[in-house]
């Protein structure tokens, strides 16, 4: 940041609640000159960009959506810390004119933090159509800061906003604004605490603001102050805070009093009813039964799009790009050592290259999600599913990402970002690999058909049910025991519906696809090369490779499940991609990779039905595939949680498979 200042760059921070059109304003200001990354140490997206005007350069930072500076979520904490510590030159508060009063709460907090603020009064059209006439000039007079009316979706108001930013940035640094007062009782309390706090204490935040946050019971401010103060000084402050625990209610009330007053002065004539809250769409979409049906239809629609648009493209890429480039490479590398050809064709193209062919399917999915998000539907989906998710210790927000796991677990893990609380998000990520993905269904289909003929569907169905039961149990145990006492509460805004903004939607989709490509190009690449090396050295005959060796080592455990070393090797290679099991069996059993009929016959000759069931169960519950693991690592930013996911799934899969096989033996079924 300091480097920027030296070059006389003006730092502009965009702050605002979710669903206020903040991204749209950001995109309009920065165009494509933007950079997307993560906030240091967090999985929250950090978007920053450059905006030029009259030869001046503005560095625009898009802060995560937040309703207040109360640090109630990771997003709010990031926004709060950036504002309070980095102190940007100008803060643009993006305000939804159609829910002005609620949005002014954040403006009040920004002013109390003493930041030079411009209000971008967005969605003027939505307010007007809802019967609200917001007088921007009156609001400006009341607030004492520039207010720019906007319809960012149509590009209206961007230029005046820039002008206002420039004016505020140019102003001499005034004496810090005190911001709206907090009511006499609270002001008296603040004064009392001020005496107790050593005058020379070096604080990371402004002094008065720190005191107010203390009274609000802010955990991180409390922690930092407790650490900075001698024990007795902290004790005196703590006593005051303890007596005035209710202060947080009064502080919030006084901010809202201020907001309500400004609202009264600016909103000249609410016509008839305040605003059409009971939107017609929600009569259906949040209905306990109708909402479920609508949601099911919508999810079905997404699947239909994924498989009718994405899947053919994927097959085309696979046949024409992946297979052909592998063939071409093989031809071009004739005369090179065998292992180098194998490295490039099987390791590189067969591993990471294969993963990349999933881009069309994922792009369709990400696009559909971005549209639903932008329209404002996500909160409704969470609402109708909350009842069910609550039963397994999760909340409504987790349903959608988990559900998307049916196609492939990777988008489920990456989609867990929409879950707000850390505990719930981690739980969602950790159980997502238990959703039976399409690749596993391919393996089940082969085994069930080979061993159970007419009962194949029943067997497949019970396996899916088993996975869902294990998922429910795992979610319940993880949220009850590992994240005990961190149960997330379900309090969520239902934003107004909007027509989606094409640019916002496309940028969001592009960004998610880019993340997936990065993932495939880094972690997935390294991991698939490792697995390739294990199956190629010291001998390129899988049986005598390192992998084969490990498979033989696992034979004793395999014995408990009725499986010989070949099955264990096949299982291990499912780590690359779940459907890899079939290819491996084809190689080891010498039936070729594509001859399904021969493979089925061979399988029934080497194992009993009981062992087949135990193998399917094992395959269904086994550790996440390489791509999923890479996604888990990326989203949790922790090898510990990634290791935990591997560990607990390994354990469950072995236990379940052993129990199934031993029970079958005990009762003499299918052995």
């Amino acid at each position, binding site marked *: 940041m300091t480097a920027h200042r030296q070059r006389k760059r003006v730092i502009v921070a965009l702050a605002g609640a979710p669903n206020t059109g903040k991204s749209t304003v950001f995109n309009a200001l920065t165009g494509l000159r933007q950079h997307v990354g993560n906030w240091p140490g967090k999985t929250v997206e950090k978007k920053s960009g450059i905006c030029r005007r009259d030869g001046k350069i503005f560095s625009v930072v898009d802060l995560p959506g937040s*309703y*207040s500076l*109360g640090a*109630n979520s990771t997003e709010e904490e990031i926004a709060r810390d950036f504002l309070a510590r980095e102190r940007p030159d100008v803060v643009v508060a993006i305000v939804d004119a*159609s*829910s*002005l*009063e*609620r949005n002014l*709460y954040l403006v009040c907090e920004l002013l109390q933090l003493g930041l030079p603020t411009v209000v971008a009064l967005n969605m003027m059209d939505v307010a007007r159509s809802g019967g609200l006439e917001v007088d921007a000039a009156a609001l400006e007079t009341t607030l004492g800061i520039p207010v720019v009316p906007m319809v960012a979706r149509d590009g209206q108001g961007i230029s005046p906003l820039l002008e206002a930013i420039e004016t505020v940035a140019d102003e001499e640094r005034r004496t810090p604004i005190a911001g709206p007062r907090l009511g006499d009782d609270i002001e008296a309390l603040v004064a009392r605490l001020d005496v107790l706090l050593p005058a020379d204490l070096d604080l990371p935040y402004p002094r008065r603001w720190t005191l107010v946050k203390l009274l*609000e*019971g802010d*955990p991180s401010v409390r922690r930092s102050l407790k650490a900075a103060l001698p024990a007795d000084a902290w004790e005196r402050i703590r006593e005051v805070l303890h007596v005035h625990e209710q202060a*947080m*209610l009064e502080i*919030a*009330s006084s901010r*809202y009093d201020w907001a309500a007053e400004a609202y009264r002065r600016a909103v000249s004539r609410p016509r008839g009813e*305040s*605003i059409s*809250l*009971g939107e017609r769409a*929600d009569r259906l979409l*949040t209905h*306990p039964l109708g909402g479920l049906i609508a949601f099911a239809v919508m999810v079905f629609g997404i699947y239909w799009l994924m498989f009718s648009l994405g899947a053919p493209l994927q097959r085309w890429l696979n046949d024409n790009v992946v297979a052909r480039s592998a063939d071409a490479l093989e031809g071009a590398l004739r005369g090179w050592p065998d292992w180098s050809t194998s490295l490039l064709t099987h390791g590189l193209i067969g591993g990471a290259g294969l993963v990349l062919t999933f881009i069309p399917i994922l792009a369709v999915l990400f696009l559909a999600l971005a549209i639903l998000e932008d329209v404002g539907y996500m*909160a409704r989906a*969470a*609402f109708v599913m*909350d*009842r069910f998710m*609550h039963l397994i210790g999760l*909340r*409504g927000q987790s349903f959608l990402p988990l559900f998307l796991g049916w196609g492939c677990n990777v988008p489920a893990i990456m989609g867990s970002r929409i879950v707000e609380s850390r505990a719930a998000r981690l739980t969602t990520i950790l159980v997502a690999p238990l959703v039976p993905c399409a690749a596993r269904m391919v393996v089940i289909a082969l085994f069930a058909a080979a061993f159970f003929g007419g009962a194949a569907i029943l067997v497949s169905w019970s396996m899916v049910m088993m996975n869902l039961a294990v998922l429910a149990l795992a979610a319940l145990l993880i949220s009850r025991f590992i994240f005990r006492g961190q149960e997330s*509460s*379900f*309090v*969520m*805004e*239902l934003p107004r519906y909007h027509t989606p903004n094409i640019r916002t939607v496309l940028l969001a989709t592009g960004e998610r696809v880019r993340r997936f490509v990065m993932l495939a190009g880094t972690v997935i690449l390294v991991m698939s090369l490792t697995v390739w090396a294990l199956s190629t050295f010291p001998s390129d005959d899988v049986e005598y490779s390192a992998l084969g060796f490990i498979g033989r080592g696992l034979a004793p455990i395999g014995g408990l499940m009725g499986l010989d070393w070949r099955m264990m090797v096949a299982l291990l290679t499912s780590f690359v991609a779940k459907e890899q099991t079939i290819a491996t069996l084809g190689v080891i059993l010498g039936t070729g990779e594509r001859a399904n009929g021969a493979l089925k016959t061979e399988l029934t000759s080497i194992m009993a039905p009981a062992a087949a069931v135990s193998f399917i169960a094992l395959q269904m519950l086994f550790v996440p595939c390489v791509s999923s693991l890479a996604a888990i690592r990326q989203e949790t930013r922790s090898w510990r949680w990634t290791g935990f996911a591997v560990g607990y799934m390994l354990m469950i899969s072995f236990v379940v498979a052993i129990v199934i096989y031993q029970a079958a033996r005990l009762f003499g079924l299918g052995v």
Partner: protein
Amino acid sequence: MRTDDRVVPLGTLRPGESGNIVDLSGGRAFVSRCLALGCTPGTQVTMERNAGRGPIIIAVRGTRLALGRGESMRLQVRKHEPKA
């Protein structure tokens, strides 16, 4: 203030009924989130959807909020007299 038997948990209001928030209880994070979203003491809320189980939807300060069933029982409201 008349009798206090009109102070009831928010989750017991039927759709269309309204009241003023009297008190919020629960964890600090929960209370803080509610306050930020406009549910301060004294504020008028109107029940929009309440199926008797599962989450509810309320209208408050010109916006709509969804609350879990458990959460909705932690807000106490003074119920308004039904309109004659």
